[in-house]
C-alpha cells in the first residue's frame, strides 16, 4: 500500500497542475534554451548600456577633440605616457573609442527600432487586411467602402486632368451605386457593364467639356474604362492583389540597395536612414502577416466565430491576431538585426549619421580612411559592436522561434 501513495500523489499533481498561459510556457522554453539566453543577455547588455549612456553619461560629440591623444592603442593602465585609460584606444581626433562605441549604440539601436517599427506597422497592417479580406467574404458595408475607395482613387486621374475634384467623387459614387444595385441587370452582365461604362463616360466627358474638347475626349475615354471596371463589385481578393503587387515592386530590389538608393537621393541623415530601411522592410512583414492570416483563417475557431455572427473586426483582432503573433515577433527580432546591419552599412558609406555624431557604421567608415596607419583598434571595436549586437538579436530570434512555436523547431 505504501508504494502506491506516491504514484497517486503524482497523478493528482498532474491533474491540478497550475494554469500556465501560452506566453508563460514560451518564456520557460526560452530561458531553458542556452543560445537564446546568450542572445537575450547580449541584447540586454547593449540596450542597457546604450540607454544608460544616453541618459547618465554626458557626451558632447561636437566638443570631443584631443589632438594630444591621437590614435593611441588601447591603454588599460595609467602610466607616464598615457595619463588616461582608453580600453579601446583613441581615434584620429583623440576621441576615446570606448565612449563613442557605447554612445553609438544609442543611435544604432534607435535606427533599428524605428525602422522595424515602420515596416512592422505598415507592412503588418497591410498584410493583415490583405490576408483577411482575401479569405473572408466582404459584408455589404465593407464592399461599399472598397468600391467607394476604388472609384475615388481611379477617378482621381480624370479629376486631376480636368482639374475638377468633383469627378473623383462622382466615380466614387458610381462605385457605391454598383454595390447597392446588385440585382440591376444581374443576368445580363455585358449589358450591365455597358450601362456603367456609359455612365462613366458621361461623368468624364461632360465635366471635361467645360475645360476643352480634348480634355472631354480623354476624360470620357478614361471614364468609360472606369465605368466598365466598376460595374462588377469586386471582392477582397482584388484588394489583396493590389497590395501584394505593390509589395512585389519593392521586393524586386535587393533590399538594402534600395535603402542606399533612397538615402542617396534624400541626402544623408540618421532619420532618413530610418525611413529608408523601414520602407524597404515593409513587404517582408506584409507577406508574412498575409500568409499567417491565410493559414489560420480556415481554422475551426475562426469558422466558429464567423458562424455565431461575430463581426469582422472582432474576429480579426480577438481570434486571428493573437494566433499569428509568434511568427511576427520572431521576424521582428531578426528584422532588428538586419536593420542594425543596414543602418551600419549606410553609416559606413557616409549616408547615415552625420559626423561627429557617434554611430558604429560611421565610425568604421571614418577609421577605414587611415587604415594604413595600422590603427587596428579604431576599426576592430566598432565592428565588434555591430557584430555582437546583430548576433544577439539573431540568437534571440532563433530562440524565440523555438520557444513560441515548438512545432517549427529546425
Amino acid at each position, binding site marked *: 500500500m505504501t508504494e502506491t501513495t506516491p504514484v497517486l500523489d503524482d497523478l493528482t499533481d498532474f491533474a491540478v497542475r497550475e494554469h500556465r498561459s501560452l506566453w508563460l510556457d514560451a518564456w520557460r522554453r526560452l530561458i531553458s534554451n542556452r543560445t537564446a539566453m546568450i542572445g537575450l543577455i547580449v541584447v540586454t547588455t547593449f540596450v542597457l548600456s546604450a540607454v544608460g549612456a544616453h541618459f547618465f553619461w554626458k557626451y558632447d560629440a561636437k566638443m570631443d577633440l584631443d589632438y594630444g591623444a591621437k590614435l593611441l592603442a588601447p591603454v588599460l593602465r595609467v602610466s607616464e605616457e598615457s595619463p588616461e585609460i582608453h580600453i579601446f584606444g583613441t581615434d584620429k581626433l583623440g576621441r576615446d573609442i570606448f565612449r563613442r562605441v557605447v554612445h553609438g549604440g544609442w543611435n544604432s539601436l534607435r535606427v533599428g527600432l524605428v525602422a522595424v517599427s515602420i515596416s512592422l506597422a505598415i507592412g503588418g497592417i497591410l498584410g493583415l487586411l490583405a490576408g483577411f479580406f482575401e479569405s473572408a467574404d466582404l459584408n455589404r458595408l465593407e464592399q461599399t467602402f472598397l468600391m467607394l475607395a476604388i472609384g475615388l482613387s481611379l477617378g482621381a486621374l480624370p479629376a486631376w486632368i480636368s482639374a475638377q475634384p468633383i469627378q473623383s467623387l462622382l466615380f466614387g459614387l458610381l462605385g457605391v451605386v454598383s454595390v447597392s444595385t446588385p440585382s440591376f441587370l444581374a443576368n445580363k452582365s455585358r449589358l450591365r457593364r455597358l450601362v456603367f461604362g456609359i455612365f462613366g463616360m458621361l461623368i468624364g466627358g461632360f465635366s471635361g467639356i467645360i475645360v*476643352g474638347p480634348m480634355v472631354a475626349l*480623354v476624360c470620357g475615354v478614361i471614364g468609360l474604362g472606369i465605368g466598365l471596371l466598376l460595374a462588377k463589385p469586386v471582392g477582397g481578393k482584388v484588394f489583396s492583389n493590389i497590395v501584394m503587387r505593390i509589395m512585389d*515592386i519593392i521586393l524586386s530590389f535587393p533590399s538594402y540597395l534600395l535603402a542606399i538608393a533612397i538615402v542617396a537621393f534624400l541626402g544623408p541623415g540618421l532619420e532618413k536612414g530610418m525611413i529608408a530601411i523601414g520602407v524597404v522592410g515593409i513587404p517582408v512583414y506584409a507577406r508574412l502577416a498575409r500568409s499567417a492570416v491565410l493559414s489560420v483563417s480556415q481554422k475551426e475557431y475562426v469558422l466558429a466565430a464567423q458562424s455565431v455572427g461575430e463581426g469582422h473586426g472582432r474576429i480579426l483582432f480577438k481570434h486571428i491576431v493573437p494566433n499569428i503573433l509568434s511568427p511576427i515577433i520572431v521576424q521582428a527580432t531578426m528584422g532588428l538585426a538586419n536593420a542594425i546591419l543596414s543602418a551600419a*552599412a549606410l553609416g559606413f558609406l557616409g549616408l547615415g549619421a552625420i559626423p561627429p555624431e557617434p554611430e558604429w557604421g560611421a565610425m568604421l567608415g571614418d577609421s577605414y580612411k587611415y587604415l*594604413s596607419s595600422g590603427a587596428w583598434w579604431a*576599426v*576592430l571595436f566598432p*565592428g565588434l559592436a555591430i557584430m555582437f549586437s*546583430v548576433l544577439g538579436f539573431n540568437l534571440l530570434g532563433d530562440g524565440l522561434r523555438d520557444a513560441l512555436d515548438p512545432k517549427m523547431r529546425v
Partner: protein
Amino acid sequence: MGRYILRRLISVIPTLIGVTLVIFLFQRLIPGDPAVAMLGEHATTENVARIREQFGLDKPAFLDRDALAEGDLSGFFDSQYVRYFGRLLQFDLGDSIHRRIPIAETLQERFPATVELALLSMGLSLIIGIPIGILSSARRNSLLDGTTMVGSLVGVSVPIFWLGIMEIMLFAVILKWLPSGGRLSSGVVIEPITNLLLLDSLLTGNWAGFTDALKHIIMPAISLATIPTAIITRMTRSSMLDVLQEDYIRTASAKGLSERVVLFRHALKNAFLPVITIIGIQVGSLLAGAVLTETIFSWPGIGKWVYDSILGRDYPIVQGVTLLIAIIFMLVNLLVDLSYAILDPRITYE
C-alpha cells in the same frame, strides 16, 4: 512549359513598370531643384538650364494637363516619365552628368568586373555551403553540426564591410601578402576577351596575369561570399533535416544503400528546391553587397561606381545601375521558378 514562360514574362511587365516608376520617383526625393542639386550650388544658370533641358526637368512629371486643356493631345504625353520610359525602351540609361557620356558605355567596362566577383563569390558559397550543410544534417547534434550552426549565425551577423577592412588590415597592411585593392597590379596586362580577368588570362595562357588577378580578387570574393555561404549552409541543413525524416529515406537505409547514396541520390535531390530559392535571393544580395565590398577594395565594378556617383551626386548613374540590378534580380528569380520544373518532375507548369 513554353506557355508558362511566356505568361511569367508577361506578368513581369507590370512589376517592371512599377520598378521604373519607383526609380523615376527617386528624382522627386531630391530636396530643392534637382538640376541645382546635380550641379552643386555654384552652377551657372546656363548649366542649370542645360541640365533642366537635357533631363526634361522643365516638363511636368507624368502628364501635361495644361497642354491638353489647349487641345494638344501629343503634348499631353510629353512628360519626364514618358521620355524616361521611352529612352529605357531603347536601352538608353541616360548620360552621366559629370563625364557627359552614356551610362551604358561605362557599364560595359564596369559590369564584367562585378560579374566576375559575384560569380566567384557565388561559386565559393556553393562549394562551401552545400557540402557543409549536408554533412551537418547527416551528423545532427555533432560537434561539426554545432560549429556549423554557430558559424553560420556569426556569418549572417558580421558586417561584410567590416570583414573586408579587417582582411585588408591583416593580409595587406600587417602581413603584406595580398594587395589591398584594385583588379590588377599596374604593369600587368591581360588581353581582353570576356573582360572576366581570371577567364581571359587562362584563355590566353597568361599565368602571371592569372595569379595577379587571383591575388586581387580573393579578399573581396571572401567577404562578399560570407553572407550567402552562411545562409546557403543553414538552408541546406534545415531542408535536408526535413527530408531525412521521410519514410523513403529510412527504406533506402534499411535496404542497405550506402550513406553516400542515401544522402546524395535520395535526400539531396528532394531537399534542393528551397536551397535553389535561397540561392536566387542571394544573387540579389551579392549584387547589392557589391556596393560595400567594391568600395572597400576599390574594385572597379558597378558597386563602386554607384558609391562614387552618390558622393558625386551623379544621380542618373545611381538610377541606371539600380534599375539594372533590379532587372537582373527579377530575371534570376524567374529562372529559379522555372528550374523547379526541371529539378522536380512533380511540378509542371501549365
